[in-house]
């Protein structure tokens, strides 16, 4: 597997939050620039067929606003901006995502590794079963 060729199920799980974060980071932006931003961050080659339905969902949820502008002799460009609701949603979802990935990481690390700091802080762990040693 190539370095940036992640399983599509992982991409599906993370794409909405990543696109929302990209729109937040980039300011007024457009689809191709978002795709480049995600690729530059090592998330792989996000195709238009994946990206635009996500952008539509974000707009339908009121998390982004869009408008069309004339292209320089080209077919025009759809500009995307994050809304205030989008910024709030980004913060909330990013926090949730951090806790979720922390739990996954914790599970994968196994019982010998200490739990991640974020999990301890969130009180998500504390009853981790300790391995029973045979006597």
């Amino acid at each position, binding site marked *: 597997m190539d370095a940036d060729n992640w399983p599509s199920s992982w991409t599906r799980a993370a794409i909405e939050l990543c696109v929302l974060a990209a729109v937040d980071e980039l300011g007024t932006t457009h*689809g191709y620039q978002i*795709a480049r931003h995600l690729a530059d961050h090592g998330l792989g080659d996000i195709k*238009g067929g994946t990206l*635009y339905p996500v952008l539509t969902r974000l707009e339908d949820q009121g998390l982004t606003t869009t408008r069309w502008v004339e292209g320089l*002799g080209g077919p*025009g*460009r*759809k500009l995307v901006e994050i809304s205030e609701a989008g910024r709030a949603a980004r913060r909330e979802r990013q926090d949730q995502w951090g806790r979720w990935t922390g739990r996954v990481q914790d599970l994968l690390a196994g019982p010998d590794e200490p739990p991640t700091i974020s999990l301890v802080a969130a009180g998500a762990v504390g009853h981790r079963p300790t391995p029973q040693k045979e006597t």
Partner: protein
Amino acid sequence: MTASSVTTTTRKYRRDLVMWLQLRDVDGARIGQIVAEVESHVAESGEPPEVAFGPAKAYAAQFGDTRDRWKLRPRSVATTLAAAAGGWFLADGFFDLLVGDDDAGVPAWLVMLGGALVLVAVFLVVPDNSVIDPRRGGRPRHTRAVLLAGTGAMFAGLLGVLWLLNLLVG
């Protein structure tokens, strides 16, 4: 990239995509958005649309009616039968009018009128999902209105010609 340099591949993809989206009863404004996004993205990325968005049919399948398109639906069957019946009565009445006959006692003009009314009803029932391009200020291309006006004008002209012929012969 200029509008005229839109490649043949993109034009064909656009045509196929519009067809599949209309078959899925996707709203015309939404179709315009989807098509404009494809054109804009491939112009920026330089990718062929099939590479960036996958086959037109598969991409269209993400939108609108997710049911199997090839299953017969009562509304589609009723609309098709009504259109066929309307066309039949219109033609039947027209030819009866030409030969100066009636249709089982019903005047030819009345048969024609009935057929025309059925066709108008069909046009009104069929969803108007003509493409609305967001880059043109969201102005719809009123396909259905144009179709109705065209049909009306054609039959008005036809009736005018018949009336003139009747005057000349009579």
